[in-house]
């Protein structure tokens, strides 16, 4: 029940009565605590038992999707009550099917009618436009008839055209067709007409200003009216064919103006009639859809649940007698009671008399890894899972990461101001959690930030804390409690000199600044030197502690899995190696901080006598003796030289121990076992050896494969492991120096930004300076946000992630498990919803 290790899981066998299976699985789906195993992996999807039911569900879903599409098309709001409807009984499926069938047919019919009506309407409107537009063409001709002499100033083609028309009119057999065509097809249409008829036709066209609705796709399209004049029947056939080819619709157009007018009037009345019919059809459609929109979400949920249940049932095995279904599932041991209850509820609901049987099975298979998470721990667990899902029941790094992750981040991101911005942003996300979740944003970047809101919040808090320690507030120091340094009275020449040296002997109040760095360092020339030494040491201290903690976790793991051999041959030499060399280094750092002080010159403990830790450490490993410089001792305490030699020798001895210990012991153990086995079998007491083996198997489930491993493999693994650890200790310790490097970079960057940007605004005087500052501040604020908070934050985040994944987790974490994915309606519905969107 804790985050420290994954839940204990049990493989259970379920015997369900055929009639009760559906209800039971439905209850389990609501519960969401059982992961079913596929018992017929070699059976095709379409050869399974409940494939017909799945297919029916598919069909229902298709109908629902059709309904939904139509509803969306009309823009009717769909009621999403968010209530959780239970999976309906199997017999309800038929009702649902009938309902959907009826709705779909009704809708299709209405749509068909509407389409036919719309087509009719479109044709009439087109005809209306033709009559109106062609009127103009014919009018023109009549005008030209009257004053033919005035045509000289008309455009040429019109002139030729009218000439031709007149000619034809005089000859008495001028034919024409009128129609409507998509506007974008006009140019090729015209070209084709010209080519196919060798220029013997005359085309006039006019655009219809209002877009018309295409009845099949219900898109708005623009069309043009055209009229083609030609001579003779040959051409007529040809023109008609071309029109057909270009999907132009032709309409009969009477020749005389009176007929045309009459026809126009008729068309107008028919359009009126059609409009009323059309609106009635639309009303009907609307009514149907509104009724459907009310319950469509619930229907979707129901159908998806049924489908999920049958999918799960398909994973089950059929008993020989066909009377019951056999299922296997992983369940958390602590939830067995809940599963039992759910099964009982399911049986009651189905009215079956035979209770379902739930058997716990012994298995050698590795169970899935399952953590009970809440919204706070989820983010941290995801960080760990991104590296690898934990092996079953191994120690989980996530609970420690809750503190170490933001802390290491903050060491690199130490600035009170930037931390404050981050905290406020995260706080806003946390406060408005519910409305923000309800929005269901699809923006990937936003979702990443939002998913990690608690991590960001903690990172912000910790950054504020480290900001206080570093005394950085947008790269400036806060003098909250008053600096403990002062300029001594006798050195009043400060007014003459540009610089003044503060000696801790006489310029320091001898009690430190209450929290963090003394603000006086902000103005000091050697600020960077001082901070470097401090931050470097701090990162080594943090790093070594973090790694030792990792090694301790491995002890916890070995104890949990009862692997004595690992404790003896892995953990003990490892921890000795780590503490004797690296933790000793940390102790030296503390010793140096405590032992040496400003006024300690007389005892040889003055500042200039403090030995360099780095040199001491190198000398220690290389067995070199330090030399006395002046009156300063090269050693920090008595017997240091001998003690250090002892430490190094022991630490180095640990390497062969790690290398050879485990393979040797395993080798011995196997020999012994072999002997025992032969002895025992000759004595006829095979039972005992079976028990021994059983005990071994039960004690170390993950050690299963280790027992069958070949000897040479074990040796090679151990060698790799040892080399990795020993080299890792050195390189990982160095790797923690990134804490120092990034924190330095961050501080410097924000200082540069202040110095190069905001200071410009602060320096200029008069009213102009105010305006200038106003603009400069905007630039500074943007850069602070974009570079210092966002980019630097991201980089610090990544480095923290690396420190956790590599430096910390490689000490104990295998991450070779697979996640528990229970059969749960909630997740199924959610994914279905996401796919839909």
């Amino acid at each position: 029940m804790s985050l420290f290790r994954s839940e204990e899981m049990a493989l259970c066998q379920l015997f369900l009565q055929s009639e009760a299976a559906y209800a039971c699985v439905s209850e389990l789906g609501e519960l969401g605590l059982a992961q079913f195993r596929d018992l017929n992996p070699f059976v095709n999807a379409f050869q399974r038992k409940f494939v017909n039911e799945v297919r029916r569900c598919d069909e229902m879903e298709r109908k629902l999707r059709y309904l939904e599409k139509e509803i969306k098309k009309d823009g009717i709001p769909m009621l999403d009550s968010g209530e959780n409807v239970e999976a309906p009984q199997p017999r309800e499926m038929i009702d649902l099917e009938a309902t959907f069938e009826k709705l779909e047919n009704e809708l299709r019919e209405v749509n068909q009618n509407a389409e036919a009506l719309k087509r009719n309407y479109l044709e009439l409107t087109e005809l209306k436009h033709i009559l109106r537009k062609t009127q103009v063409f014919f009018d023109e001709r009549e005008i030209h008839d009257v004053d033919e002499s005035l045509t000289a100033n008309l455009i040429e083609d019109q002139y030729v055209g009218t000439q031709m028309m007149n000619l034809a009119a005089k000859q008495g057999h001028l034919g024409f067709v009128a129609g409507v065509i998509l506007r974008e097809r006009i140019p090729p249409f015209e070209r084709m007409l010209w080519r196919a008829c060798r220029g013997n036709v005359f085309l006039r066209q006019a655009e219809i200003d209002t877009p018309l609705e295409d009845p099949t796709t219900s898109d708005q399209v623009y069309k043009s009216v055209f009229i083609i004049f030609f001579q003779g029947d040959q051409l007529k056939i040809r023109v008609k064919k071309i029109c057909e080819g270009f999907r132009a619709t032709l309409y009969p157009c009477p020749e005389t103006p009176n007929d045309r007018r009459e026809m126009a009037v008729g068309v107008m009345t028919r359009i009126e009639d059609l409009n009323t019919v059309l609106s009635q059809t639309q009303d009907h459609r609307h009514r149907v859809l509104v009724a459907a929109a009310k319950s469509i979400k619930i229907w979707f949920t129901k159908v998806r649940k049924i489908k999920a249940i049958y999918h799960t049932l398909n994973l089950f095995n059929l008993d020989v007698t066909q009377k019951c279904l056999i299922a296997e599932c992983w369940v958390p041991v602590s939830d067995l009671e809940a599963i039992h209850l759910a099964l009982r509820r399911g049986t009651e609901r189905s009215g079956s008399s035979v209770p379902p049987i739930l058997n716990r099975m012994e298995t050698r298979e590795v169970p899935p890894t399952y953590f009970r998470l809440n919204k706070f721990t989820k983010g941290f667990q995801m960080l760990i899972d991104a590296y690898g899902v934990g092996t079953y029941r191994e120690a989980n790094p996530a609970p420690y990461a809750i503190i170490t992750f933001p802390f290491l981040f903050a060491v690199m991101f130490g600035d009170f101001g930037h931390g404050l911005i981050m905290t406020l942003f995260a706080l806003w996300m946390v406060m408005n959690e519910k409305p923000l979740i309800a929005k269901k944003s699809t923006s990937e970047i936003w979702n990443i930030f939002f998913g990690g809101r608690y991590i960001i919040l903690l990172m912000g808090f910790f950054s504020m804390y480290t900001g206080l320690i570093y005394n950085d507030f947008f790269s400036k120091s806060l003098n909250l409690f008053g600096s403990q340094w002062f300029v001594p009275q006798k050195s009043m020449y400060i007014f003459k000199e540009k610089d003044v040296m503060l000696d801790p002997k006489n310029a320091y109040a001898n009690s430190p600044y209450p929290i963090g760095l003394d603000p006086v360092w902000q103005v000091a020339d050697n600020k960077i030197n001082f901070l470097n030494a401090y931050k470097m040491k701090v990162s080594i201290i943090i790093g070594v502690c973090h790694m030792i903690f990792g090694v301790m976790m491995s002890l916890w793991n070995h104890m949990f899995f009862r692997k004595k051999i690992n404790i003896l041959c892995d953990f003990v030499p490892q921890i000795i190696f780590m503490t004797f060399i690296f933790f000793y280094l940390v102790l030296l750092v503390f010793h140096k901080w405590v032992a040496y002080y400003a006024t300690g010159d007389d005892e040889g403990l003055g500042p200039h006598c403090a030995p360099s830790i780095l040199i001491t450490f190198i000398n220690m490993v290389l067995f070199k003796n330090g030399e006395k410089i002046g009156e300063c001792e090269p050693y920090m305490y008595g017997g240091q030289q001998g003690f250090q030699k002892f430490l190094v020798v022991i630490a180095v001895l640990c390497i062969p121990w790690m290398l050879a210990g485990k393979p040797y012991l395993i080798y011995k153990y196997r020999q012994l076992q072999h002997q025992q086995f032969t002895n025992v079998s000759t004595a006829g007491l095979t039972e005992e050896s079976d028990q021994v083996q059983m005990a071994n198997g039960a004690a170390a489930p993950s050690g299963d494969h280790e027992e069958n491993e070949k000897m040479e493999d074990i040796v090679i693994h151990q060698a790799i492991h040892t080399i990795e650890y020993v080299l890792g200790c050195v390189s990982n310790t160095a790797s923690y120096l990134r804490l120092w490097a990034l924190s330095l970079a961050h501080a410097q960057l924000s200082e540069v930004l202040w110095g190069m940007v905001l200071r410009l605004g602060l320096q200029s005087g008069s009213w102009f300076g105010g305006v200038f500052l106003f603009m400069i501040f905007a630039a500074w604020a943007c850069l602070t946000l974009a570079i210092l908070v966002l980019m630097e934050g991201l980089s610090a985040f990544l480095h923290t992630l690396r420190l956790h994944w590599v430096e910390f987790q490689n000490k104990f974490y295998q991450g070779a498990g697979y996640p528990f994915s229970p059969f749960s309606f909630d997740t199924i519905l959610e994914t279905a919803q996401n796919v839909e969107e």
Partner: protein
Amino acid sequence: MKGAMFNIDNGYLEGLCRGFKTGILTQNDYLNLVQCETIEDLKLHLAGTDYGNFLANEPSPISVSTLDDKLREKVVAEFVHMRCHAVEPLSTFLDFITYSYMIDNIVLLITGALHQRPLQELLPKCHPLGSFEQMEAIHIATTPAELYNAVLVDTPLAPFFVDCISEADLDEMNVELIRNTLYKAYLEAFYDFCTQKLGGETAEVMCEILAFEADRRALIITINSFDTELTKEDRARLFPKCGKLYPDGLAALARADDYEQVRSVAEYYAEYQALFAGAGNNPEEKTLEDRFFEYEVKLNVNAFLRQFHYGVFYAYLKLKEQECRNIVWIAECVAQRHRAKIDNYIPIL
């Protein structure tokens, strides 16, 4: 360096194409497909592959023709997507691929018009990749010259058509001649485009494929021309001259009088000899056509073994087409309960 330059313009599309290619059905999928009892089973299984729920919105029962349409729709959508994102010279290359579909469409429409079929019935049968603006007005033409002047002059096929204008009439025989002449001109133009404009890996890969295409046409034209009115001179004029058979093999083919002679011509070419060797009309043997398909699939699959060339786009489309044919074949067998020949699909390795 070459790869970097290639990737500036075409890296995305090549990656996309290779991604699509991994979605091609595997042998395992086919084994499952042939076990299907109904089209519904087929649909269920295809839903588990890269096709996803492309049939989900079709009301059951699904007919084979809907299946065919949907399969084709998917390929076309993928191809059009790639075409839309392509830049020169890849866009021209992709256009070249579509020309063969245009030729097929034209011939389909003309033949349909000859048989007095209404346009509305013919149009859905046209391949969407080969549709062009003037296509529907094609039936106004009664002679090849008219066809050229009125319809084809604006299309990219115009230069290929020059050789056919001389034909007098549009009858069945001439339509076939037009198709083959167009195809010959098209293949040669495509071949030249690949070797002269593109060069490099594209040329190497595409030449292999196009040469085979040309030779296949020559062989099949020859075999099909026996016992028809086609003269030997006319026949020789239809052979595309960009294959491996050119010039000697084509000259020999032009003289051939029966199947055995064609076979003996093919003997001289290692690749084709193997194809002819295993082909026959007996039930247990594969037809020559299938052997050709198999070889084509092999060439197309090989195109994916090299990188930084355009051949993958061509090969992908052809492979996908073959896959559609396979699925439709299996679906037909399933629908007609004619399972004896269900295994005659062409596996894509």
